[in-house]
């Protein structure tokens, strides 16, 4: 591999000037707007129906725009936002504990290890307040106290209690609220819903996003759709690792195809690994299940002190309860006496890897114990059951083990991706008319996302940002005829996609799509996972292109392209993950510092914590596709911190 990368022109995020707290309000008051009578002349294409996509679809339709909404599932309600468990942050200060918009802003910037934009994050904190109002008005059944007011819980990385929740199904309830609002607009005719549709390409007319190429997953037909702007709300790319807590169909294809048409991809190496997931049980494993990190409030994390003893446990010659206190290593409590088992996600994950690498893992060797024996002794079984009963049940259902009697086995898993398409303050990508919202963009979480912030960001983007900022672009555009796809750009994009699908179908090789995906995932996990080195990343940069080459000559896809064919769907997605994976490795290789979810072993403090290099790396790495996945061009956006001081995180 070549160590030299091309550096392109620096880019600007277009954050407005002025005092932080006033930026958004001032900006909104001078932004261009589309006259109400003209809004109905514009058509907005929205890809994805999760929190970002559904909230954007309903809000834009309510304003009078025509919306075409696409999702890959049988119903918009299936989008993966539905799986978010914990909650949604908002600076309501209902608990009178000193919360404020500033404090939420500050926690988010710090939690992101100072790799996000001040202006965007402050706007997010401002919008958080309206989100809760909006969702309650929609009938979202949040948890309440006996007095009838909303309840809050605490979450990692914050010293106030600001997380709103609906049992362990907050994402589901917020999504169903947004979905309902969107279906109301389907009934009015302002939103046209297209289910079972996957976006495979972006159509550019004179450099502007003016349409999409879609595959109908039910029939295999290729469709063309024209519009005045395209909103990508297609989620994150965690499935590049094959195993993750993402839904099986979550993918990067829509975003990646836009990247190949010119949209910059920002900070692809920032991935979040969640420490409390149920470990892999065998090669057939298809996905990983997350268990709420609230378990770490009462569970104690440990492994046997010695390799020898761990080996006995692995061979089931020794029951964990038989291991004496003196032979256990409660490594988080030992290394971080102040925070103990409640260190942030990235720290907890990395330490689990370290002890397993030392040969002290339990279960298959890639697991540590999360033990509730002390909590049961201290609080009684009833209290533990009341707090965590549903999680214990879920664990038992999946593993067949009773966590009241035997410590849980847990291991970290890929959970969220902070990187995504680069967007400016308006959420517009580097392609005019193409926007990215929610997890699909890179904008608000820096190098690490705090718990209960993903739901907040998806809904802020869809309900309270894009309805304003899209007007600034559309006001200067002449509306297109949404029924007219006669422009040559549609035809050529369609033919390219057809040719790609035909090519995939005609390889007729020996290995299945699943085998390739699993192989890619293993490499990504090994080299671009929890802990990265220059050496490992260099290997990834060498091996991923080879795997990609093999994929394109040896993949076997059954069936035909003209019907429901899940293997074909997956093949196209895996093909894109193979290209993205290389970019993730390159981004991680070039970022010679540790920050948030990106840990480079060469850059750590004496105590083994992430060591940022603010002088050289306080920038957003925005990658431009230059015709070949192996030779991207790097554009830097400098991050300016006018309101916060950059400090080293410490949890000792």
């Amino acid at each position: 591999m070549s160590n030299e990368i091309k550096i392109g022109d620096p880019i600007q995020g277009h954050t407005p000037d002025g005092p932080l707290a006033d930026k958004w309000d001032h900006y909104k008051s001078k932004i261009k707007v589309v006259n109400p009578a003209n809004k109905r002349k514009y058509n907005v294409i929205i890809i994805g129906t999760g929190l970002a996509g559904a909230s954007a679809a309903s809000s834009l339709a309510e304003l009078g725009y025509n919306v075409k909404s696409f999702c890959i599932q049988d119903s918009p309600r299936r989008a993966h936002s539905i799986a978010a468990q914990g909650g949604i942050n908002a600076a309501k200060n209902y608990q009178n504990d000193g919360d404020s918009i500033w404090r939420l802003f500050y926690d988010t910037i710090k939690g992101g290890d100072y790799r996000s934009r001040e202006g965007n994050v402050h706007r997010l904190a401002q919008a958080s307040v309206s989100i809760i109002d909006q969702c309650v008005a929609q009938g979202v059944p949040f948890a309440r106290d006996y007095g009838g007011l909303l309840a809050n819980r605490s979450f990692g990385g914050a010293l106030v209690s600001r997380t709103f929740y609906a049992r362990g199904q907050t994402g589901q309830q917020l999504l169903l609220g947004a979905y309902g609002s969107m279906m109301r607009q389907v009934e009015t005719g302002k939103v046209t819903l297209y289910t079972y549709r996957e976006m495979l390409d972006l159509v550019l007319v004179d450099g502007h996003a003016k349409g999409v190429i879609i595959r109908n997953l039910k029939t295999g037909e290729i469709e063309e759709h024209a519009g005045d702007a395209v909103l990508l709300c297609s989620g994150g790319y965690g499935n590049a690792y094959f195993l993750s807590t993402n839904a099986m169909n979550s993918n990067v294809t829509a975003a990646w195809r836009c990247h190949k048409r010119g949209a910059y991809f920002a900070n692809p190496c920032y991935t979040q690994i969640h420490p409390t997931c149920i470990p892999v049980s065998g090669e057939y494993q298809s996905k990983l299940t997350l268990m709420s990190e609230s378990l770490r409030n009462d569970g104690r994390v440990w492994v046997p002190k010695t390799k020898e003893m761990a080996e006995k446990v692995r061979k089931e010659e020794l029951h964990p309860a038989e291991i004496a206190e003196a032979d256990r290593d409660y490594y988080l409590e030992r290394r971080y006496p102040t925070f103990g088992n409640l260190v942030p996600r990235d720290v907890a994950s990395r330490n689990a890897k370290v002890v397993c690498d030392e040969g002290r893992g339990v279960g298959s060797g890639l697991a540590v114990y999360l033990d509730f024996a002390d909590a049961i002794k201290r609080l009684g079984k009833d209290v533990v059951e009341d707090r965590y009963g549903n999680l214990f049940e879920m664990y038992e259902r999946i593993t067949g083990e009773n966590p009241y009697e035997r410590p849980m086995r847990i291991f970290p898993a890929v959970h969220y991706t902070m990187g995504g398409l680069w967007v400016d303050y308006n959420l517009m990508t580097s392609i005019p008319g193409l926007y990215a919202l929610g997890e699909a963009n890179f904008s608000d979480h820096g190098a690490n996302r705090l718990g209960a912030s993903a739901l907040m960001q998806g809904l802020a983007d869809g309900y309270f940002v894009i309805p304003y900022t899209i007007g600034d672009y559309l006001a200067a555009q002449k509306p297109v005829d949404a029924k007219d796809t006669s422009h040559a750009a549609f035809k050529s994009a369609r033919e390219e996609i057809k040719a790609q699908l035909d090519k995939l179908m005609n390889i007729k090789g020996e290995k299945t799509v699943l085998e390739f995906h699993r192989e890619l995932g293993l490499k990504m996990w090994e080299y671009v996972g929890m802990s990265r080195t220059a050496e490992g990343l260099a290997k990834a940069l060498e091996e991923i292109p080879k795997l990609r080459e093999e994929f394109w000559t040896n993949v076997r896809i059954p069936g035909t392209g003209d019907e429901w064919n899940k293997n074909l769907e997956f093949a196209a997605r895996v093909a894109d993950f193979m290209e993205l994976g290389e970019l993730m490795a390159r981004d991680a290789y070039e970022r010679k510092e540790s920050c948030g979810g990106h840990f480079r072993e060469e850059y750590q403090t004496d105590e083994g914590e992430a060591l940022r290099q603010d002088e050289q790396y306080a920038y957003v790495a925005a990658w431009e596709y230059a015709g070949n996945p192996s030779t991207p061009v790097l554009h830097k956006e400098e991050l300016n911190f006018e309101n916060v001081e950059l400090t080293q995180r410490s949890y000792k």
Partner: protein
Amino acid sequence: MSTMNLTLKIWRQPSADTAGKMHTYEIGGITEHMSFLEMLDVLNEKLIKEGKDPVEFDYDCREGICGTCGLMINGLAHGPRKLTATCQLHMREYKDGDTIVIEPWRADAFPVIKDLVVDRGAFDRIVQKGGYISINTGNARDANELPIGKVDADLSFDAAACIGCAACVAACPNASASLFVSAKIAQYTYLPQGNPERGRRVLKMVQQMDDEGFGNCSNHGECEAVCPQGISIQNIAIMRREYMKAAFKSGTLQV
């Protein structure tokens, strides 16, 4: 680790307008730790390697919340384990030598797309008629200006927990969607926000349920028994009460 050999009898149907039939497959190497869908993944990998068409089935989150997966397993929607969606069912429920019969959800309102995949778009069209509170973005007052008692809020949540998987329809001898529709009606009946549209909502959603070709509820209770979220059949009583009130009020029903 010991493994199981199983006989699978699976419904194969190339497309909506082609007749389907059961096919038998022998499969080995299944461990108790696999989920039911991972067992089908293993079967499909084997079929693809042999140059045969894999069995198509739908799924997404594989953690029991998205509602995409759903198979009729030995005649039971989502299989033998209570409060468990197909994706959360694990093979430790089975033993070596078992025969497992796997079919799609069967209902006139859910056309088969291929094999075990059915189209549940009818559910979206029902929701479209009123499964929401009509409020535009930006019009909400402060969330705590509207206190709602904890009991009502919890009951509303219990109903709202529905994942829309449609096991209730598949299990019902009448292929009724009453549990699904009533869960949405009940969610808003418990909340003051739902009040202004309550009559209109129930009339329109029930009408759409009928138009989609779902059957009527005759109190078998199969729906509640198979529901992975434990949605209560009491919601159907609430829906009926709401419907009667609204129908009398609107003049649709007269004594």
